[in-house]
C-alpha cells in the first residue's frame, strides 16, 4: 500500500476531520484513545495480516512509528 493511501485510510479509521500527516504526534490527536487503538489493531490484521499488540501500540508516538510497524507493507 502506498503511504498516501494509508494516510487517507488512517484518517478514516481514526474518524478524523483533519488529514493525517507522517510527522504528526498521535498523542496530540483527540481521537487517539483505546478504542482507536483497537481499530488500528483490526485494520492491520485485516489489511496487512499483522497482529499488533497493545504493548506495541503503547510504544507508538508518531504516525511514522505506526507506518514502521507495517514494515514493507506500506511504501
Amino acid at each position, binding site marked *: 500500500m502506498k503511504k498516501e493511501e494509508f494516510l487517507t485510510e488512517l484518517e478514516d479509521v481514526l*474518524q*478524523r476531520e483533519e488529514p493525517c500527516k507522517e510527522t504528526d504526534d498521535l498523542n496530540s490527536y483527540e*481521537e487517539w484513545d483505546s478504542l482507536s487503538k483497537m481499530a488500528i489493531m483490526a485494520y492491520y490484521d485485516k489489511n496487512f495480516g499483522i497482529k499488533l499488540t497493545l504493548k506495541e501500540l503503547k510504544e507508538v508516538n508518531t504516525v511514522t512509528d505506526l507506518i514502521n510497524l507495517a514494515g514493507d507493507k506500506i511504501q
Partner: protein
Amino acid sequence: MIQFSKEQIYIVTGASSGIGEAVAILLNELGATVIAIARNEERLNAMKEKCKYPENVHIEIKDLTEDIDGLPKYVKSLKEKYGKFSGMAYCAGLGELKPFQLVQYESLKNLFDINYFAPIFLIKGFVDRRNNIGNGCSIVAISSISALCSDKGHTSYSASKAALCASAKAIAHEVSSIGIRINCVLPSNIKTPMTAIGGEGYEDSQKSLYPFGFGEPDDVANLVIFLLSNKSKFISGQNYVVDSGGVR
C-alpha cells in the same frame, strides 16, 4: 420540562407511522429539527402536516434494507446535507407472527435486516465522530418486550429484537468515551399498523397479560423523548420495558 432547539438535529427512522411518527411529531413540537426517514413519501408528508413546526422537519425517502452496508455512508451524506446530529431514534421495524415450523431462512434474514442489521449499521454511521456533536448525543432503539420474554410464533421476531438489545449494550460501552449514550425501549403491544398483524380480537386475547390494554404510540414516544434529552444524561446501555403493567 424537556425542550430542544432547532439547532439540535435528530434522525427518526420509521417516521411515517406508529411509534416513529409519534416520536417525530413530539420532538418537533419540543423544538428539535427532525430528519424523518421512511419508505412512504405520502405518509411522511401526512406526518409533516401534523407537525407544529413543519419547516423544521426534513423528509428523506429511504428503504433502509436496500444497501445495509452503505448505511454509514448514508448517514454521512445526511450530515453533509443537514449538519451534525444530536441524536437518533431508530423506530423502523417489522413484526412477524409465525410458528417455528414455518420459519424459513429467507424470512428470518429479512426480519433481521430491518430489525437488527439496519439499526446497527445506521448507528455505526451515527457514532462516527465526524457525524455527531459528541457530548450530549443520545440514541434510542425501539426493541420489543419479545426480546425478554418470547411467546409462540415469535422465534424470529424475538431473536432480532434481543440481538438489538445485546449489541446496543456493547456499543454503549464503546461510545461513552465520546459522550454518546444509547438505550433501548421495549414496548409490548402498541396500537400501530405493525401490531395489527394480530388481527381482530387479538387485543382481547392479550388482556390477561396486559392489564392496561394496548398502548398508544405516544406512550412510547414520551419515554423516547426523555431518553433523547439531556434529562437522562446519566443513563446509557439500558433496556426500558413499556408493557402496560404486564410487569415482566
